[in-house]
Structures are given as C-alpha cells and as structure tokens.
C-alpha cells in the first residue's frame, strides 16, 4: 500500500516539460556545497535540477555520469588523472580535457581553489614530537595511521606516499574520513589524510604537515559534465563556466566552516555564495525555530517513506521468491541443498560490495543505479536466506503422520501443499519474514552509502558533519521503525496464524 503511494508520488513528480538535470556530489561536505551551488545556479537559469547529495565515492559517481544518471558533479584534477583516467602523464588541462572527451565528458576550468591531500596530526602531539614535515614521520614507526578508504587505495595516496617518503609504519587502516577525524581527536590514531579545505582542520586543531618532497599532485576543483549538455542545456553549461575562478581557497574554506562548524545548511551556504560572488539569486535568511521544526518533520517524513520503500519492496519480492524456493528445497533434497548454499553465499557478501556488484545488473535492467534500485536488490538478496530457510524447516519438519494422512486421503499434491503443509509451516514462515523485516529496516540504512535515500542518508550526513545529533536523526527513527515493524508482525500473527496451531503451542 505504502509502496504504491510512493511509486505514484515518484511517477507524478516529473510531468513538466522543462529540461531536467541531475547534479551529484560525493560523500563529503565540500562536494555537497558545490553540488548545491550548481543546483541553485541551474534553477536560476530556469532548469529543473535535482541534486543527488553524497551519492558515493569517485568510482560510483563517475559511473553514474557515464551512464547518464547524472549530468554534472564536482571533482578534482588529481582525482581525475589518477583515479578516473589513470594516466599520470596528463599534465595540462587541455590534455585532460581531450582524454575526458573520449568518454563524452566535459570539464570546466578550475573553480579557483585547490583541495589537495595532506597529512595532519594533532597540533599538541606534533609540537611535542617536533614533527613539521611528512619526512619527520620516518622516525616514528610506532605511529598508527588511519586513512580514508579512497586514500588507502589511490596510487598517490598511502601506497605512493609511503614509497616516496620511505615511511616505516605498518599499522595502517582504512576508515571513513569523518571517523578518522574523531579517531585522531580521541588519540586512537596519530595521523590521517586531510583535504586542505577541510573545516575540521580548525575544528580539531590539527597541524598540516609540509609535503617537503612535493608528492601530492594538483587537486584543483573543477566540474565534470556530460558533453551532450552543450546541446540539451546550453545556457546551463554557460552558467557552469561562470563559476570558473570564482571560488577561492578562502571562500571554499569559509563555506565548509559555515556548514561544518556553524550548522548552516548546504543550500543556505550555497545561496549566500551565489548572491555575494555572482549576484545570482538571494541570500536565504536564517530559518526560524518553527521553520527548522517544519523542515525536520518534512525531512523525517520523506526519509521514512524512502526507507519504507526500500524495505517493503525488497521484502515483498523476497517473500514472493523465497517461499516457493523453500518449498522446493524441502521437496527436493539435492536441489534444496544447492538453493540453501546459494542463499548462504549471498549472505556472506559484505553490504557495500554487494551494492556495487549489483550496479551492473541494475543498469542492465534499465534502472537507474543511483536511485533505490541497487539497495532494494541488495536487501532482496539478503532477505532470501532467512525466509527460504524457515520455509524449508517448516515444511521439512511437518510430522510424517500428517503428510501420510494427507496423501492417503487422496488430496492432490498441490492441495496438500496449500491446505496442509503451508498452513502447518505458517508459524515458522512468518517468523522468518518477521526477522527479515526487522533486519531489513536496519540494513536499509546501507542505502545511504549509494544515494538510495532513507534513514541511511541522514546517518551519512551526520557522519560527514561529525554531528551526533544528525546521526541520531537517522538512527533513532530506524530503531523505532524496527520496533514498530516487529510489533506489527506480532500483532498480525494473531490474525495470520491458524487458531488451531496457536492452541497447540499454548497447551
């Protein structure tokens, strides 16, 4: 029911003839602010622009750009050459632009600031140990390093850095960028990777170590866009170019600080910038308490509906597939062994890996990889095992005498299944569905990693801004929803489970 309403809402959302554009950002504040700037600029030009905030990491966003799920997103020269084009010989913008054009992607000139990688430590620790340059780290092999996952993987990240500086540290782990700051602050880590425009540098009082061997490449910010925009939305591309050179290092740092430290929303920070620097649009006034409350309610409602969409659609599909599979598994032992093993293998695939693996099949089905589809597919796959297993056990454990009675009566196999076996197994089947539903409510927060919406998005926002309040805004409703789902199932058991079976357990 709910899912039908949601689908209608989604379907009804786009019946205007205007050119619709999609901008995306990566999962950190600066990217989200730049995305908001692009969105507001596009809307000012009369386009309908949707911003898929914190869609994911570079690989995911690039894929979405190539697939046409998004039209434009902000990135950095160094990232483009190292991670996307994987060609370190590309030195000047013309060469990069030519390489990108082969992918039908265009690039603006630099926006005016450089968000380079750097290595940071707590100021007082660095001061005490007299560490100023990255080279100084060489004499502290006991240091524990925690780097953002991208940094661990990238050639110019930890692999290149440790080779270049001959760094001896072995205790290196990958973790979320925001978590790394918290761990550094708590003393669990001695150093982490930074971006030179991060507001957290000031917030946590960090020392940025000098890159004395000039290891890190140029990380000037640019916008990447699909070249077909030049035909589809020429004035939009022109507007994007107006940003070139207009966002200075200080401007970007100030915008980041507004959002991260002063709790200004990204859209307000972006609007303020556009009004001040480009005389586009107006400054959005600070919201009143009642506006904040209204916004919170709107946000919670929207994310609740998104979350329910993920859970309800994946669970319904899983029930539809798993119950028959469970029955087959119970009836055909050899086939059943294969079915259960397959479901078990799926269960062992880590969440994020499964989400990424599902991108290709989802695309192949003609669905958008940046919407809820991959998350629904992943939740669906995770739901299979508990429902198949409980259906299997429920049918398998029916007493022999029941089965023989049904057979000897002369019921057809289908009637036996429908009238005797499924009802007798109903309690276990429903228990499997209930467990799955509750787990799915929790698991669906993974959708926040790939822009599927739901409570996960709120949790990711909280993580990105190191704001516990924000994180709880997603985590508490998720926990409450899980309880409600559990309660609903317990209530419906009274209606769905045959009275005769409940008597048996009571007696």
């Amino acid at each position: 029911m709910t899912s039908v309403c949601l689908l209608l809402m989604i379907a009804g959302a786009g019946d205007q003839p205007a050119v619709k554009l999609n901008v995306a950002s990566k999962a950190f504040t600066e990217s989200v602010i730049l995305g908001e700037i692009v969105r507001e600029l596009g809307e000012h030009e009369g386009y309908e622009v949707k911003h898929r905030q914190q869609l994911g990491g570079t690989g995911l966003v690039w894929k979405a750009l190539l697939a046409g799920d998004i039209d434009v997103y902000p990135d950095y020269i160094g990232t483009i050459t190292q991670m996307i084009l994987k060609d370190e010989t590309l030195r000047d913008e013309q060469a990069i632009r030519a390489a990108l054009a082969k992918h039908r992607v265009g690039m603006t000139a630099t926006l005016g600031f450089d968000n380079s990688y750097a290595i940071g430590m707590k100021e007082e620790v660095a001061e005490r140990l007299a560490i100023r340059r990255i080279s100084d780290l060489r004499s502290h092999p006991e240091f524990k390093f925690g780097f953002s996952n991208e940094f661990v993987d990238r050639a110019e990240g930890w692999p290149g850095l440790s080779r270049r500086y001959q760094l001896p540290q072995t205790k290196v782990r990958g973790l979320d960028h925001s978590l790394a700051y918290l761990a550094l602050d708590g003393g669990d880590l001695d150093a982490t990777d930074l971006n030179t425009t991060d507001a957290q540098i000031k917030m946590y009082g960090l020392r940025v170590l000098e890159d004395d061997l000039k290891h890190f490449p140029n990380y000037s910010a640019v916008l990447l866009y699909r070249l077909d925009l030049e035909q589809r939305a020429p004035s939009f591309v022109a507007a994007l170019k107006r940003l070139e050179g207009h966002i200075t290092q200080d401007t970007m740092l100030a915008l980041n600080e507004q959002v991260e430290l002063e709790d200004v929303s990204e859209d307000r920070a972006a609007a303020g910038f556009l009004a001040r620097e480009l005389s586009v649009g107006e400054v959005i006034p600070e919201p009143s308490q009642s506006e904040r409350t209204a916004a919170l309610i709107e946000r919670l409602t929207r994310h609740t509906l998104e979350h329910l969409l993920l859970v309800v659609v994946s669970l319904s599909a899983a029930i539809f597939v798993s119950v028959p599979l469970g029955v087959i598994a119970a009836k055909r032992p050899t086939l059943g062994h294969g079915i259960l093993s397959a479901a078990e293998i799926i269960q062992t695939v880590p969440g994020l890996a499964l989400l990424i693996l599902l991108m290709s099949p989802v695309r192949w089905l003609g669905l958008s990889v940046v919407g809820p589809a991959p998350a629904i597919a992943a939740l669906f796959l995770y739901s299979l095992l508990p429902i198949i297993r409980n259906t299997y056990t429920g049918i398998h454990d029916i007493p022999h005498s029941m089965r023989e009675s049904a057979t000897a009566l002369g019921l057809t196999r289908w009637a036996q299944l429908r009238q005797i076996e499924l009802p007798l197994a109903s309690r276990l089947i429903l228990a499997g569905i209930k467990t799955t539903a509750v787990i799915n409510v929790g698991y669906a927060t993974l959708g926040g990693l790939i822009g599927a919406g739901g409570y996960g998005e709120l949790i990711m926002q909280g993580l990105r801004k190191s704001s516990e309040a924000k994180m709880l805004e997603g985590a508490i409703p998720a926990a409450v929803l899980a309880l409600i789902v559990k309660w609903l199932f317990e209530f419906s058991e009274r209606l769905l489970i045959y009275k005769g079976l409940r008597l048996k357990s009571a007696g």
Partner: protein
Amino acid sequence: MLELRGVSKSFGMTQALHLTDLVIERGKSTALLGPSGCGKSTLLRVIVGLIQSDTGSVHFDGDEITPHNIRRFRHRMGYMIQDGGLFPHMTVRKNITLLARHLGWGHDETQQRLEELARLTHLPRESLDRFPTQISGGQRQRVALMRALFLNPDVVLLDEPMGALDPLIRSDLQAELREIFRGLNTTVVMVTHDIGEAGFLADSIALFKDGRIVQRGTLEEMVRTPQDPFVTTFINAQRSPLESLGDNHP
C-alpha cells in the same frame, strides 16, 4: 475386493515383507495381526500406496493399482492411523469435510453427510467446531473415523486404530466400531497386535511373523488347528487378567 499378488518390500537390508499373496473379501473384515515389525503395517501401507512394493501388484475389484491411478482408488478407501492424523490447524468439522470440499461437494450435501456420521459415531455436536487438540483421544478417533468414512468408501483401512487409547475407552470404542462396521456392511482391513481386538472385530485373521503370513483363518481355527508353533505361542502370549490370580479362580 482387494487382491495382493506376490507383494514384497524391503527397507535397506531388512526384508519387511516376503512374497505375499492375500485376498480380502468384500463385506468381510480382516485383521492383519502380529508382533511389531512383522510386516502387517507395511502391507497396509502398500495397499494405500504410501509405499511402493518391490515386487507384485495390488488389485482393486480386478483393476491393478498403479502410482498413476492411486489417487482415484484412495477416494474409495478410508484410511485411519493410530493417532488419527488429524490436522491441527483445522477444526474437527473442517478435518472431516476436507476431502468433500476438495472434490467440490455442495454445502447441503456435505452437512447432511456430517450429521449422519456424527450420529453413527456418537460424536457430540459441540465437538465439531473445536480443534483436534481440544477434544479427548477417544473423540479424536471418532473424528478420524468420520473423515475416513466420509465418501462412503468401499473399503476401510485401519492402522492400529486404538493403539493410543486407554483400556476402558478402547473397549467402548471396539464395541462401537463393531456395530458401525456391521451396520455399514463395509469391507474392513485393520492392523493390530492385539489378538482379542482382532477376534472381536474381524471375521478373519491373517497372522504375520517376520514378514510372512503364518496362518489365515478365524480365531477359532487358529486356536484349534494351528499351522505353525508360532500361532500357539502368539495366542498364549496374550495374558488373561485372571491368570495373575493364580489357581484360585473358579
């Protein structure tokens, strides 16, 4: 009515049933008697098609029963097992009328048959809307019998129908069953290990030992002209309650 020709069955290394021929006459009740593990239940289950025999064939009114046509014949057989085999999720009424509903009987016809059988088996009317777990063991067997009799089968097959009941109820139900079967004039095949029950309910007995029929006949014939020492041994093994009083009884 029923004819078994050269039926045998083994489970793994155990020969549960050696080559066996058996003719069940129409309108007669036959007891398959013997100690546990003698093959009597196996034989009954071969007839209903719950297990496939290794050799031989079963004929119903001259037609051979095969896995393909077994379902048709099952509607002409009423089968009842020791604990009744009632479905716990259905009320007594639903249990009894399950097959009729499955075959698309009309409501009135079904209700009429239900009333008829309730009278026949003395099942209290209020039991009809209870669940199997809410009625007594004796009533459960009545319900199971009603379900077996619902389509007015040509033959009733009972596998230890009273094995799970306590002695007093058992004795009452035996008397009722005898009355019912005589009234209906149905063919009955029952499996039991109780020679008293066999003699009381059945017109003739087939005594089994280790997967073979040792003797076929009436109880009287078995007592008077045993064809194997085992017949006498089995009959004498059934202890009379008076025996334990010693020699003092009159």
